[in-house]
């Protein structure tokens, strides 16, 4: 029987790829008095529900989606969070 899983895919720039947007935000924060912020990185998150036989199958499907479409491995890394649908 297939189950449903909540998925969050966080796509961020690979380490070593300059993040001008993150840098600009980081430089703006001191203007509001936040002086201790560093390493700002901007990314995007995709949320969806996937049907799979079990959690392992769900993760496998999502990894494959990321590899082939949801992220571009030349410039991006992904972080997958996955759990039973609540």
């Amino acid at each position, binding site marked *: 029987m297939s189950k449903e899983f909540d998925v969050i895919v966080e796509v961020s720039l690979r380490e070593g790829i300059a993040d*001008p*947007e993150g840098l*600009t935000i980081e430089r703006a924060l001191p203007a509001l008095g936040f002086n201790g912020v560093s390493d700002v990185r901007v990314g995007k998150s995709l949320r969806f529900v996937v049907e799979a036989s079990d959690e392992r199958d769900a993760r496998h499907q999502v990894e494959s989606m990321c590899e082939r*479409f949801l992220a571009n491995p030349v*410039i991006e890394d992904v972080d997958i969070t996955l759990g039973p649908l609540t």
Partner: protein
Amino acid sequence: MTTRVGVVVFPGSNCEHDVVEAVDAVGGSGELLWHKDKSLGDVDAVVLPGGFAHGDYLRTGAMARFSPIMDAVTRFAQDGGPVVGICNGFQILTEAQLLPGALYKNQGLKFLCQPAVLRVESTDSVLTRRMKVGDELNVPINHFEGNYVCSEEALAALRENDLIVFTYQDNPNGATADIAGIRNENGNVVGLMPHPERAAHPLLGSTDGALMLRGLIGID
């Protein structure tokens, strides 16, 4: 025989008419192809024009590879047919893995619409086959995501195989190794960020883009 150049229109393309006009002006015959077409008809060359195909959703060029015409474009390219991606078209070619690397946001985070001086680095491509290495061309750029990025290994392969076709004289967007355009190993697939169709008439301030298009349609 007049060279027929098919210019693919995706939802969100916006330079297709300029390309058709420029191709016609240099002696070819430009025609529009719709992205839902499954065949390229009898065209002799294909151009993927600039714009925002499919709204640039997810990433620039990422959705275009699902357009039905892309299977035909890929087969055409693999059979040695000339395929040129301009700006958004270059982004589509990298996402479709017809060319290596990716295009990322300009280093200064500004949309750039300005003239650019290019240097010809390789003459083994459909756009530069009638030029000399070191030739300087004045062709404008118009992009937010033109910062060419690739792995160190990919860059070494580009250099080793002479696959870098154009570099910027004064790098405007942070592109790796000043890269403005690259080609595949056969030289029949070329992607570039600058817009040759916008430098195809003296009134536009430069005719250097016409030189590229003359190369594409095989006119000396």
